Structure formats: structure tokens, C-alpha cells
């Protein structure tokens, strides 16, 4: 590798765009923090409000409700995606035919426009003519008021996340498993381990780093979930599915509170930074190594 040299024009040309773009990252941070201390509604003028917005935020019961909802959503969805996703990878590893068809199908939810997926599920969850209730009735489960009642709406959003992202867990796990040497499996079988035990005790630990990375990505992405939920429920009914990003958006664009919106954004950005810092201890090193 070359030592940096000031004659190296190429290098500077290469890095200038990055510096320019950093303006675009640092500006928003500064701006969000700045306006978070102002009382400022759309169409109005900013009035300095001190920590007033923050007091409002931390005394707002809806804020705590949103925080709790977002966390529950994240834990439930990611937990389900890992169980289901790794289970599916287990099936994929142990079949000999049809893998290509299976992986093609699993790609679909991942590339489907999330906003559009939200709309399709909104139709499918329809209490009257929705297909979800119809298929449930076939196996003897009575129809649910999916997007109408709070708990059911919450569960619906989790189901959609599981639908969209389980394939990600499956495909990454499967890809990781196929890179392992065949002797590892054979050795474990010969040592007397069952297929399941081999998978759980020998193979999964081998792709631990990979699993950390996707766990990390899934936790981050569920915490900032917006697209599918917004087009499916709009955060409702009431505030039953108003997760952090939606809470932030609604305060800004529906209630026109720019100052308060910035306060929420500031809090959320800091929160995500903390989460990323904590979680990336293990995942980060793995990403750099990859």
C-alpha cells in the first residue's frame, strides 16, 4: 500500500466528493439539534424555547408508549424472523432438490417495494373480504379485526415484517452454511451427533459472526421501521402502531410542529447512535473482516 503523498492528485480528487457529502451529513445533525430548542411550526417563525421541547417530549405519555411499542415490535419481529428464518435455512440445507426455486421465492419479499407491500397487506388484512381471515377460517380460526383493533394491528405489522425479512435471515444463514467444509458435518455425524444437534452445536456457531451482523441489521431496521407500517396502518388505529419514525413524521407533517419534530428526531438519532455503538462491538469487527 502507498503512503499518502501530497503529489497524489488522484487521491484528493477521489476524496473531495466525500468531504462535500459530509457537509450534507453534519449539517442535518447540527440543524436538528439547533431547531430542537425552538418552538417552530410550519408557516410560523422559530421562537427560542430552551429545553421546553425536551420537557414536553419527556412528559408526553405518547412518547413512552411509542418507545415501548417500537421496542416490542423490534424484539418480537426480530425474534420471530430468527427462529423462522434459521428454521427455514435448516430445511433448505437438508433437501436436495428445489433449492433454486425456494431461493427465488424468498427473494420476492426482499425486493418488493415496501410501501406497496404495506398496501397489499392492508387489502389482505381486510376484515370483510381479506384473504387472511378467509384462510384462517379454513383451519378453524375465527376472523379477526386485524387493522381495526390495536393489538391485532400491532400483530399485523409484526407479521408483515416477518414476511418481508425472514427470507433475509434464511438466505444469509443458508449462504453462510454452504461455505462450510463438508468434513465438518461428516465429522459431527461420525461423532454421533444427530442432524439437528450438528446444526445447532457445530454449524451455527461456525457462522456466528454472520448471525451477529444480520441480528444487528435487523434490530436497527426494525427500530426505524416506517414504510410498510405507514402505508398499511398509518400508525393507527389511534396510536397502536405509531412507532418512532412514524411518531416523528406525524408530529412534523400532520401536526406541523417543526421544532418539536426536531426534538424527537434529535432524541431518536442519539438513541440509534447508542444502539448502533453498543451492538456494533461484535458486528462491526465482523463487517470489516468480511
Amino acid at each position: 500500500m502507498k503512503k499518502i503523498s501530497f503529489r497524489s492528485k488522484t487521491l484528493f480528487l477521489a476524496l473531495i466528493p466525500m468531504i462535500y457529502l459530509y457537509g450534507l451529513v453534519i449539517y442535518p445533525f447540527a440543524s436538528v439539534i439547533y431547531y430542537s430548542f425552538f418552538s417552530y411550526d410550519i408557516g410560523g417563525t422559530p421562537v427560542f424555547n430552551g429545553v421546553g421541547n425536551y420537557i414536553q417530549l419527556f412528559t408526553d405519555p405518547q412518547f413512552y408508549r411509542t418507545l415501548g411499542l417500537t421496542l416490542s415490535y423490534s424484539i418480537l419481529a426480530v425474534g420471530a424472523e430468527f427462529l423462522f428464518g434459521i428454521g427455514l435455512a435448516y430445511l433448505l440445507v437438508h433437501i436436495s432438490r428445489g433449492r433454486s426455486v425456494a431461493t427465488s421465492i424468498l427473494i420476492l419479499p426482499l425486493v418488493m417495494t415496501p410501501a406497496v407491500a404495506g398496501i397489499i397487506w392492508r387489502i389482505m388484512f381486510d376484515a370483510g373480504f381479506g384473504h387472511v381471515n378467509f384462510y384462517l377460517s379454513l383451519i378453524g380460526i375465527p376472523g379477526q379485526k386485524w387493522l381495526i383493533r390495536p393489538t391485532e394491528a400491532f400483530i399485523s405489522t409484526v407479521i408483515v415484517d416477518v414476511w418481508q425479512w425472514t427470507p433475509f435471515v434464511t438466505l444469509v444463514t443458508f449462504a453462510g452454511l454452504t461455505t462450510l467444509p463438508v468434513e465438518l458435518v461428516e465429522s459431527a455425524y461420525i461423532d454421533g451427533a444427530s442432524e439437528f444437534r450438528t446444526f445447532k452445536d457445530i454449524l451455527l456457531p461456525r457462522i456466528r459472526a454472520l448471525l451477529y451482523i444480520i441480528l444487528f441489521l435487523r434490530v436497527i431496521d426494525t427500530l426505524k421501521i416506517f414504510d410498510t407500517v405507514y402505508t398499511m396502518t398509518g400508525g393507527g388505529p389511534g396510536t397502536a402502531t405509531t412507532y418512532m419514525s412514524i411518531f416523528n413524521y406525524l408530529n412534523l407533517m400532520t401536526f406541523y410542529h417543526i421544532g418539536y419534530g426536531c426534538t424527537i428526531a434529535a432524541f431518536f438519532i442519539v438513541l440509534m447512535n447508542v444502539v448502533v455503538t453498543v451492538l456494533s462491538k461484535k458486528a462491526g469487527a465482523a463487517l470489516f473482516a468480511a
Partner: protein
Amino acid sequence: MKLKTLIFYILLAISLLFFIYPVYFAFNLAFMPRAAIFQLPPNYIFQPTLDNFVKVINSWEFSKYLMNSTIVSILSVTLSLIVGLPATYALVRYDIPKKGTILSMILGIRFLPITSVAIPFYIMFVSLGLYDTMFGLLLTYILLNLPFIVWLMRGYIMDVPTELEESYEVDGLSKTQVFLRITLPLVYKGLLATVLFCFIFTWNEFGIALLLTGTNARTLPVQSLQFVASLGLDWGALCAAAVLIASPMIVFGLLIRRYLIRGLSLGAVR
């Protein structure tokens, strides 16, 4: 043994049905005559019609938003490449101080809560007159694409042996020539996959477009929300719109199947 295999296939089939059903459902309804839609049990076999598509394409300025989405996606990916590729190459091949920090910060963009970060852009764009313009949207999308371009291309460029580049340099090519004429052609598959990946990502983007555009520069995913408002119970037309928006991405996604997972895992899967 046989029984176990059978059970595996059955479980797999049921799971796959769950993942494919919403897609099948959208395609099904999109071609379904209006009368057949509100029937249970659902109609699986019917005389397909293009009425729903005609309705969507002929109204709500579908073609305008289609153009918006296409232009924004193509331009933003192209610009991101121009900005990101040389930077990636420099970050791989030169001994830049704080390289790890720079890479982490670029990656960090991927983890930001995008709707929150877009708020100051909104304020800035309104005051600069960039609100609801393609240019404004492009500026932010470049930022969004950067982590993918840098992290994915970093992996591909690192796979090219340094010795190879050095041997061309010794033979008289400049560093820029080596990059353009030797390295890039070697990683073109990865580059192509990265481009398609970013294209899918940009096309599907919703949060920022929702905040930063009005009726003028709006993209299709945002417009789809408008369809819900105006089409409401016209499920057939709604699904036709969904199919029109999502199917190009499905095609691209299937094309880059293997690379897609690499992209989504930020290069962790090879």
C-alpha cells in the same frame, strides 16, 4: 428417512406459500374483473382483464410519476457511482489516515433513522427552493446510496490482487488509468450488481420522498399512498398499481439473486 424428507418438503412448501402469496395475490387481483374481486372463497380462475391497468395508467398522472421514479433512480445511481467509486478505490488502495473511521462513518449513514434525518433537509430545501424538486431528491439519494457503493465495491476491489495493478503501473499506466482500464473491467460483474442493487433501493425508497416532495417531484411509492386515498375500495386498480410499481424490481431482484444477499448484508455474505 423418506418420511422425514417428505415432512421437510411439506414444511418448506407451506412457508414458501406464505412468502409468495402476497405477490401472487397482487398479480391475481390486478388482472381480475371488478365483479370477481369481492368474493369468498377467492377466485383463482377467471377471465383476465387489463381494465385495472388501463384505469391506473390513464389517470392519476401515473406516467408522470413513473418518469420521476425512473429519472431519479437512474440519475442518483449514476451520480453516486461518480462520487463513490473513486473514493472507494482510494479507501482500498491508499494508506489514508483514519481509514477505519471514514469507512464506519459512511456505513453509519445506513443506520440513521432516515425520516428523522430528512427533517432538516426539509427545512433547508424549503428555504432554498429545493423542496419538491428532483434535484433536491437526487442530493439526498446520493447520500443514501453511498454506503452501499462504498461497502460493496470495497469488497470487489479488494479481491483484485494489488500485484496485478502494480505490474501495470510499472509498465507505465497511471493510477487513474489502472483503475479505469484494469480494475474496473475486472470487477464489472460486481459493479453491475451494485448498480442494480442501488437502483432497487432508490426506486423503493419511501420515507425521504414522502417528506421532501409534493405533487411535482413525487415518486411512485409515495404516489401509491395517493392511490389508496383515491382508489380506496377499488382493489383491482390498487393491485394493478402495485404490480406496475413492484414488478420491475422483482425482475431485477431475481437477476441479481446472489448479489442481492451480499448487498443486503453489506458484503458480509460472499
